[in-house]
């Protein structure tokens, strides 16, 4: 009876450790909208969706809303968001309508994509922004920033591309950013195949970051491996195999030792006799 009680207590203790440890992973803010990605041919980054060349046809399309306050999701601006992967880049398109979009109120409009590293949750450290300096004449620039403690620093070596175009009240923003680009250094988040990254879509009307951001939302994109590419890089594969082999060996020796303990009483009696 006493033995049974001890076994049950030990089992409960093990189960408790395993269950409670899964809750130790730190989660902050809200849950981002999860987004798949489509594969296709690379579009031209010019702010125009060219139907003749079937641009963006195979992109994954979603409608999301940008909110002034992410914790209180009301009064959102509805935007179309298209995501496309075409080696070696990731392409993002945002399209939406605004009343009197041509008016001077929107002269310094911008739309940006902030990126957090795969293991950094919602700590956004990279920003790609298309900033208008004059909406009526369609003058805009693409900027690549590095974010440190909410301060935006322009990259020494900007990566990616961005463009926008207003037609009537509807505007189209297009971005491209390299995947598996190791030359970005610390200024850029290195996007990798097989990992999930959080992206924050930001919108504002004055060219000041981050105080100029008036609405935003967060999406989560899993970057897939291109067709035919190995799912795991060889280094990671070797590491996974080594981990399984090493811990299995230790586990096997441990199991053998436990087996020896169960025979210990008999062995002591044998030694005595």
């Amino acid at each position, binding site marked *: 009876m006493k033995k049974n009680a001890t076994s049950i207590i030990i089992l409960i203790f093990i189960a408790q*450790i395993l269950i409670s*440890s899964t809750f130790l992973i*730190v989660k902050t803010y809200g849950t981002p909208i999860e987004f798949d990605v489509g594969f296709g041919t690379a579009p031209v980054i010019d702010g125009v969706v060219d139907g003749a060349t079937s641009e963006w046809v195979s992109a994954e399309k979603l409608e999301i809303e940008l909110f002034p306050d992410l914790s209180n999701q009301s009064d959102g601006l509805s935007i179309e968001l298209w995501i496309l992967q075409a080696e070696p880049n990731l392409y993002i398109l945002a399209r939406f309508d605004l009343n009197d979009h041509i008016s001077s109120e929107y002269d310094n409009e911008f739309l940006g994509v902030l990126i957090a590293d795969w293991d*950094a949750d919602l700590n956004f450290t990279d920003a790609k922004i298309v900033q208008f300096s004059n909406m009526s004449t369609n003058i805009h620039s693409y900027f690549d920033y590095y974010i440190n403690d909410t301060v935006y620093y322009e990259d020494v070596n900007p990566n990616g591309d961005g463009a926008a175009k207003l037609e009537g009240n509807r505007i189209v923003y297009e971005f491209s950013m390299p995947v598996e680009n190791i030359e970005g250094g610390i200024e850029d988040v290195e996007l990798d195949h097989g990992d999930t990254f959080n992206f924050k879509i930001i919108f504002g009307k004055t060219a000041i970051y981050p105080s100029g951001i008036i609405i935003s939302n967060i999406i989560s994109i899993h970057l897939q491996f291109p067709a035919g590419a190995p799912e795991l890089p060889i280094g990671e594969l070797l590491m996974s195999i080594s981990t399984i082999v090493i811990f299995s060996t230790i*586990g096997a020796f441990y199991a053998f*030792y436990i087996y020896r303990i169960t025979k210990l009483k008999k*062995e002591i009696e044998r*030694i005595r006799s």
Partner: protein
Amino acid sequence: MSKIKKENLKSGTVNRKPKLKEKSAYRSVILSAVIGGLLLIISILLNGGYLSLFASEHILFQTLDTTIKVLVILFFFIFMTISIGNYKELTGKPLDLKLIVIIFIFSLIQSFRDSIVFSFSFIGLLMIIVYLFLVQEN
């Protein structure tokens, strides 16, 4: 009459003492092995990369993460050494250097995925072995 009784009582306590010692050593073998097993499970989850304690890249969390991983390995070594040491004692053999080296390798190899954890575990394990050696010498 009373003399015989006293002798019987004396021989009874003398026999009971080694039995009691043996029982506590046996209990120590089992308990230390169970704790060692629990630490091994935690080490597989943490050092095997199957579970992240902290998602944050903040230096404080990273230091805490490394410290926990190193401590799990060091305590695994300590408890397994205690368990195997008592096991050997019960079978009448000493815990030789060969076995300590095997436990050392099995403990250290758990940290092979992370060079920082490996370095600190290596130093920690060496310190424990030196301590055990000094205690044994005394």
